[in-house]
């Protein structure tokens, strides 16, 4: 039934061209050569020329390699047995466990009908004031951490994952350093979370095409769990590696790049993955937290830029802190009116004053005289950074709000803050 072809016409990059007939677009094939066997996927059909992207790369693939078409696109298994397991980017076990082949489902499935989505409504508590107070994370949100290399983004991901109340954690690692892979495995293990986790890990040493599969595999599994009414948290790190893998393929396929070598469909490709985040009206949810490292700390670089247009906000991690400027949770207003009546007030006023503090710092650096108001701002800024921004702070939202009022009252008079009188009457701490 399954046809085997042996006429490889072209090998370039990770793409091979074979002459074959009756092949479906996106169909999977096995390519066997002296180097071993690899999966490959159809990425273009042109007459009888079939373009295949070889998962383990084309190195060592010979012109007489055997290509066997499997008659179906890329699939992943789904079963409870996935929990606690670790796989590669093409779904092979990376731990010593057995392969799983139950309920095979195609990856990269269709998108959710917008009419079946509901408005997200549950806050995800993290204990980090810069998130809980200022940019509340919401169940079903898709949110990247924008960061430069060297920042503790993976520990931050792990910390949020462990603190969040979710049923299943799925980690998709792309170009992960081996140490980081072991780090994730060990923290999840230590905190007893491995048994509710599934890991799909592509490390920097693995073939680049496998990197491309990671988000789709991770999200396809997440989707299945969510349909079983589970609240799933998907961690994707690092999406910039994913985008770079796409760039590599695009260049091999001689596509015209749009911006710094990235393909013109970068936005659509990223969106297809991030939009898998969902709150179903009668099932579970998928929340996506991703890492996007910014080459050259440049947020206008195509990867962070396109990401920002897709995700529901972003956390900027800089100097070990989540920056208040630029960081944004677009869903926060869906939940922060139900937490505590003063939540929004504290959120807005403290940030506006922190912005004023930053201006004062500039003035101070220029050697200008500091007015009474400047003095107040200077005092405020230092406390804000130390007591709110520092990542070591780990307190519940309510305590953080109280602390906010206290800092304000210690630094300012109520009328100076721009806070509506109705709020200060009620919340301003009495001396």
């Amino acid at each position, binding site marked *: 039934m399954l046809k085997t072809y042996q006429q490889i016409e072209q090998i370039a990059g990770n793409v091979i061209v074979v002459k074959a007939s009756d*092949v479906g677009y996106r169909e999977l094939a096995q390519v066997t050569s002296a180097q071993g066997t690899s999966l490959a996927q159809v990425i273009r059909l042109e007459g009888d020329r079939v373009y295949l992207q070889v998962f383990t790369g084309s190195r060592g693939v010979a012109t007489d390699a055997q290509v066997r078409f499997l008659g179906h696109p890329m699939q992943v298994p789904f079963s409870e047995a996935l929990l606690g397991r670790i796989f590669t980017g093409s779904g092979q076990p990376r731990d010593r466990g057995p392969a799983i082949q139950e309920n095979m489902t195609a990856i990269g499935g269709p998108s959710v009908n917008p009419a079946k989505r509901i408005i997200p409504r549950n806050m995800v508590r993290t204990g980090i004031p810069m998130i809980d107070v200022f940019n509340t994370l919401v169940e079903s949100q898709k949110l990247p951490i924008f960061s430069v290399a060297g920042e503790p983004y993976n520990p931050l991901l792990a910390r949020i994952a462990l603190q969040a109340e979710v049923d299943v954690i799925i980690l998709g690692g792309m170009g992960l350093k081996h140490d980081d892979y072991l780090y994730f495995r060990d923290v999840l293990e230590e905190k007893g979370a491995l048994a509710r986790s599934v890991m799909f890990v592509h490390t920097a040493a693995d073939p680049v095409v496998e990197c491309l599969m990671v988000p789709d595999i991770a999200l396809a599994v997440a989707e299945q769990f969510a349909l079983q009414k589970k609240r799933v948290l998907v961690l994707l790190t690092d999406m910039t590696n994913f985008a770079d893998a796409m760039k590599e393929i695009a260049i091999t396929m001689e596509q015209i790049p749009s911006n710094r070598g990235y393909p013109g469909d970068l936005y659509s490709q990223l*969106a297809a993955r991030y939009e898998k985040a969902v709150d179903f009206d009668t099932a579970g949810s998928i929340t996506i937290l991703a890492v996007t490292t910014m080459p050259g700390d440049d947020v*206008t670089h195509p990867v962070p830029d396109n990401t920002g247009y897709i995700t529901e906000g972003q956390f900027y991690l800089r100097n070990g802190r989540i920056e208040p400027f630029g960081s944004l949770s677009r869903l926060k207003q869906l939940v922060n009116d139900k937490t505590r009546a003063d939540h929004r007030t504290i959120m807005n006023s403290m940030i506006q004053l922190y912005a004023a503090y930053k201006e004062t710092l500039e003035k101070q650096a220029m050697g200008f005289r500091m*007015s009474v108001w400047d003095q107040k701002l200077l005092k405020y800024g230092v406390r804000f950074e130390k007591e709110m921004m520092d990542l070591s702070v780990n307190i519940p939202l309510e305590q953080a709000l109280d602390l906010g009022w206290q800092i304000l009252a210690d630094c300012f008079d109520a009328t100076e803050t721009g806070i509506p009188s109705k709020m200060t009457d009620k919340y301003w701490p009495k001396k």
Partner: protein
Amino acid sequence: MTTTHLGKIKGVNGNLIRVEFASPVAQNEVGYARTGNLRLKAEVIRIRGTVAELQVFEDTSDLHVGDTVEFTGELLSVELGPGLLGSIYDGLQNPLPELAAESGFFLQRGKYLASLDRKKTWAFTPVATVGAVVQAGDTLGTVPEGIFQHRIMVPFNLRGKLTVESVAAVGDYRVDQVAAVLVDERGGKHDALFHQRWPVKLPIKLFAERLRPTEPLVTKVRIVDTFFPVARGGTYCIPGPFGAGKTVLQQITSRYADVDIVIIAACGERAGEVVETLREFPHLEDPRTGRSLMERTLIICNTSSMPVAAREASVYTGVTLAEYYRQMGLHVLLLADSTSRWAQALREMSGRLEEIPGEEAFPAYLESVIAAFYERGGVVKLRDGGIGSVTIGGTVSPAGGNFEEPVTQSTLKVVGAFHGLSRERSDARRFPAIQPLDSWSKYTGVVPDEQVTFARGMLRRGNEVNQMMKVVGEEGTSIDDFVTYLKAEYLDSVYLQQDAYHEVDSATSSERQQYVFGRIHKVLKTRMQFAEKDAARQFFQRLTQLTRDWNRVAMDGPEFKELESRAEQMLAEVTSYA
């Protein structure tokens, strides 16, 4: 009317298929690619020799070389008729709630449903009489649709003069029934149904004349209506980096704008944002009518993970539906978020067609395509003397937030108003983050011109003082300049900024804008005397807080007057009468 020809797939590259055909094929004709039990909708976008290239509006997985393509002979079209309002469609006008009822959570490939409910009946009142001579776009009768009289019109594709042979009597009809029988000049008979089809890429131009957009379209956003107004039948764009507030600005506009109908084209952005609208609008009251907001709203939803080619179609679907309602003498606002995603869809396709790329790999024809789209906006005088309008507001999502890119630049050339959002303002939470010094509008607003001009000058001078202060410091700044700076900041804080999430502040009527701006104008004009800068700053901090409180109370309540007189008093205390 339509004949089906067949073709064969020769190649598949992403959502582009190459199809060999034998009988004639038209550009932009719709075809269906068949594989197994699936029929995938596609549109011809290039023809070379005997090979047509089609963009498929679906994922092309499983298509094989040799699969059949049916050509329909029809251009990509939408259904026009009663029942459009309140609908939620994808970019090809498939009703999403109905699709969900049939297929569940996920959009199913190749599943297409009728856009208009075929079972629902509409209470028809004829207008045209037997023997009357009519032409395309004339009214045959009306059916009530929500608060509107929906006109059943002579099909737009009929040419020349037609005589009414018969017209349906008063009664209830379904959309696929005949409303009238018309006879053309050559004696040919035509059934006019209660609905018709129209190709989305052709503008509906059945009016007497196009007028200049002069009437303001009140959005209730102060900075817009007062400083950078939009006109009914005008066009405007909102470029801005991500997170600057484009979508929120469109969302509040869709709620409060003073128009008859709002069409929201969610084009290639987040699904979640549309969900907010489609879940909330049915429960929100339209302040103009007291009815559900959904009754005046139509949503075209082709979000970022939905098929890219249908994204390209979605803006045309939106504007065609807008033109249809304009033809009934209604004022329609089309909000497209984001036009950049549509342009990117063009770019993706152009890349697959291996066309010679222009700047940033956008196709060379990008500019003319954008211009032609915005040209479909306009205020028109109908042949019956009525006035209708289509206003188009599009967001632009420039790469890296840099306005010097092809989509922003092409758009700026054709629109009548520019609401440029700035990262600086959104970072400082100064919402709506429209940059007051760079934005512009060619239309007339709701507040007297000389007041606005004065205020604008104040903003500019305040900004200059602020820049200067960064160099010479506060101590090197005169108190007069310093007060100018504080006045500009005051205007910004209490008028330009507006809280989208506050029940009162979120929408300011034009009367209130005129009134409040009059007061603020007075503050700006007042010569003030302060002993020192800190006193001046404190005064403005207090006045700002009071004015913000003022913005948050209803205009007809007692607090409004009270806060106003307190502000007057404060002002009197610092006024210099020298």
